């Protein structure tokens, strides 16, 4: 009898070893912690992140997430019918602790047209919750899971056709903090990239429809951070102080593109590769897969405007993937001097030339429409050099503020955009000797951005039409 029991126990033990499919390492644990208490998850809209978790025990967390289909801006003057988790793109940020027991409620707003569900990559279980949360409009579903693995995870809608649900904005991030918590930093932000496919090309005004053909070909018109061109620029830039440490929770909803995430002007001290437990150091650019994430940490050593980009760089210059993090404070010359000299250097090199791609002219815009469109084009195409305030950068990029260079002839701006410009010029009494490549913009886009410049930055006003630009091209 006793022997039989021993044998049974042995068989049981061996079967445990063989059936345990979880890899035994620090980040995953099949031991379920005792649950103490209950709380309702704080959900935040990007770029904000819920406060760090200070508990040293597992609790029951109730998450209430509502699906809302609504028309929102994708760029100033361009709207789109987004499908959202919580009313924004990306969806609400969810923050829990490893070991927590999550009671998840998915609510499908009664005004929505379609059923939706949610696949949280943080869930071990059928469909990541998708099968349990398939919800008709005007209904609410519920399921529970224990957060076994720490990490930063994407969640997304997984209702067929899944690509279209994601392409319309249905994704967000859920952070499962390790039991010991994440190291303390001064500031945390939520940045999530997504690619969008519209009938009209980049910048075409009005309500844009989903373009299935472009989506299948994986040729997006927009690649943006936080759901909109300019969601993290100008007044909406993230702000920190010199000396502060920053943590970015970076996600990529896709649906198609893999992001080459890079911050111009700083180096990631730490990257939690793919949002997991492997920490790499001294990284310039980190890959963020579609349906994946990364956590990046860095210290902001000097004052500057750090530029967040997808370094698959045409997406940044021409499709919108640009964000800003302003670091304010005292200069630290020992780390970064700024420009120390500017002297003449002559070379035989020919100026850079871009292929000449004629663009079909769009319908004529009113001056008001041009100013709106022009602002967007400026921020995506011109701002990187001429700066948001139009002041340029001394010695390198001439100012557009109260510029005497084009004051007497407003067509100068359009000509410069069409043909590019190289060699020595004088602007407001200062000499510049650089190269501006010609820009591949349509006639209407050039008219808009020229009009925008003429009516901003203290310039004298005026208007340029697409027809003017067409003439100037010849």
């Amino acid at each position, binding site marked *: 009898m006793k022997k039989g029991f021993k044998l049974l126990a042995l068989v049981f033990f061996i079967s445990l070893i063989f059936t345990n499919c979880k890899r035994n390492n620090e980040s995953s644990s099949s031991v379920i912690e005792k649950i103490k208490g209950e709380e309702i998850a704080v959900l935040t809209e990007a770029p904000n992140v819920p406060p760090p978790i200070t508990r040293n025990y597992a609790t029951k967390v109730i998450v209430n997430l509502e699906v809302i289909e*609504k028309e929102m801006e994708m760029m100033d003057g361009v709207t789109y019918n987004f499908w959202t988790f919580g009313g924004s793109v990306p969806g609400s940020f969810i923050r829990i602790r490893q070991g927590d027991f999550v009671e998840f409620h998915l609510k499908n707003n009664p005004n929505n*047209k*379609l059923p939706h569900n949610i*696949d949280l990559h943080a869930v071990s279980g059928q469909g990541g919750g998708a099968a349990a949360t398939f919800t008709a409009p005007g209904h609410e579903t519920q399921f529970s899971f224990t957060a076994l693995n720490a990490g930063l995870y994407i969640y997304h809608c997984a209702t*067929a056709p899944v690509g279209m649900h994601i392409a319309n904005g249905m994704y967000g991030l859920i952070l499962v903090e390790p039991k010991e918590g994440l190291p303390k930093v001064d500031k945390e932000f939520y940045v999530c990239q997504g690619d969008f496919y519209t009938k009209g090309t980049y910048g075409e005004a009005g309500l844009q429809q989903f373009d299935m053909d472009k989506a299948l070909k994986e040729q997006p018109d927009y690649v943006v951070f936080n759901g909109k061109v300019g969601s993290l620029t100008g007044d909406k830039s993230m702000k920190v102080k010199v000396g502060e440490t920053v943590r970015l929770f970076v996600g990529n909803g896709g649906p198609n593109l893999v992001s080459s995430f890079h911050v111009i002007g700083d180096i990631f001290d730490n990257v939690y590769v793919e949002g997991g437990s492997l920490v790499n150091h001294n990284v310039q650019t980190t890959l963020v897969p579609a349906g994946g994430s990364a956590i990046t940490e860095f210290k902001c050593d000097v004052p500057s405007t750090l530029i967040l980009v997808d370094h698959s760089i045409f997406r940044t210059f021409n499709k919108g993937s640009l964000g800003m993090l302003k670091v304010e404070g005292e200069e630290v010359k020992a780390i970064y001097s700024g420009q120390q000299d500017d002297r003449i250097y002559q070379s035989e090199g020919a100026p850079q030339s871009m292929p000449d791609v004629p663009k079909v002219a769009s319908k004529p815009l009113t001056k008001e429409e041009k100013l709106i469109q022009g602002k967007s084009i400026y921020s995506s195409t011109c701002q990187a050099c001429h700066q948001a305030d139009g002041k340029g950068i001394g010695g390198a990029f001439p100012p557009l503020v109260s510029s005497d260079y084009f004051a007497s002839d407003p067509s100068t701006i359009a000509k410069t955009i069409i043909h590019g410009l190289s060699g020595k010029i004088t602007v407001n009494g200062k000499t510049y000797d650089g190269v501006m490549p010609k820009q591949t913009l349509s006639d209407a886009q050039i008219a808009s951005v020229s009009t925008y410049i003429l009516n901003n930055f203290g310039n004298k006003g005026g208007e340029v039409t697409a027809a003017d630009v067409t003439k100037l091209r010849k």
Partner: protein
Amino acid sequence: MRNFFIAIILFANLSVYGQGQTTMVNIKGGFYLPLYSLDSQKIVVKPFLMDIYPVTNMDYKKFVLQFPDWRKSKIKSIYADTNYLHHWTSDTNFNALLAFSPVVNVSWFAAKKYCECQGKRLPTVAEWELAGKANETKPDATKDLKFNQWLLNWVSKPNTRMLANVGSTFKNYYGVWDLHGLVWEWTFDFNSALTTGESRGDSGLDNTFFCGGGSFASKDINNYAAFMRFASRSSVKAKYGVPNLGFRCVKDKIAQ
């Protein structure tokens, strides 16, 4: 004064479709290839008659006046959830502007009963999809890019604040209005949409319809609008009331 105008609107509508709620048109039979089928097993659809319009609130009011068991205060909870006729202000009243809008928030049980009481029945998925393939000019517009884009545009938009009247979208090749562009519609076998292939177990019902699974074994992976309809059908249960789900009836064609 306002009521007077409403009366005019109602009258105008009535004159547009006359005895519309009882009018049916012939749908010539054909073959229907289910979105989910492991083999190219076509379903034969016999000729049938289909309501020209979805059932309206007004039509449905007549039904509950005649069959009080189906009023919202009386209906048995196994036949409908609490969304049943949620948009009606009482057992027999609703905003007069909705009189000729499709009735929504009705359960499958109620829709089925309604049709039976008219001597009709709910269409099968195959019948509905066969009729739904038509655009204004062609019986099968499934490969028509413009038609497909129109369908996708409609599904992309949230519901309008107030549902439009029946007869406000388009009249298709067969003379049927509003199969697309107004509301989703109940079908008789809505919940068997995924079990058309005999070689797939019923366990497939739960897990075929999300993520990549959605395209697995589909015969028409690019027909996104059809996926949306199938997703919509799969997300409901027979007692559900949904704010954009209505119905219409069909009838077998009796050989002349």
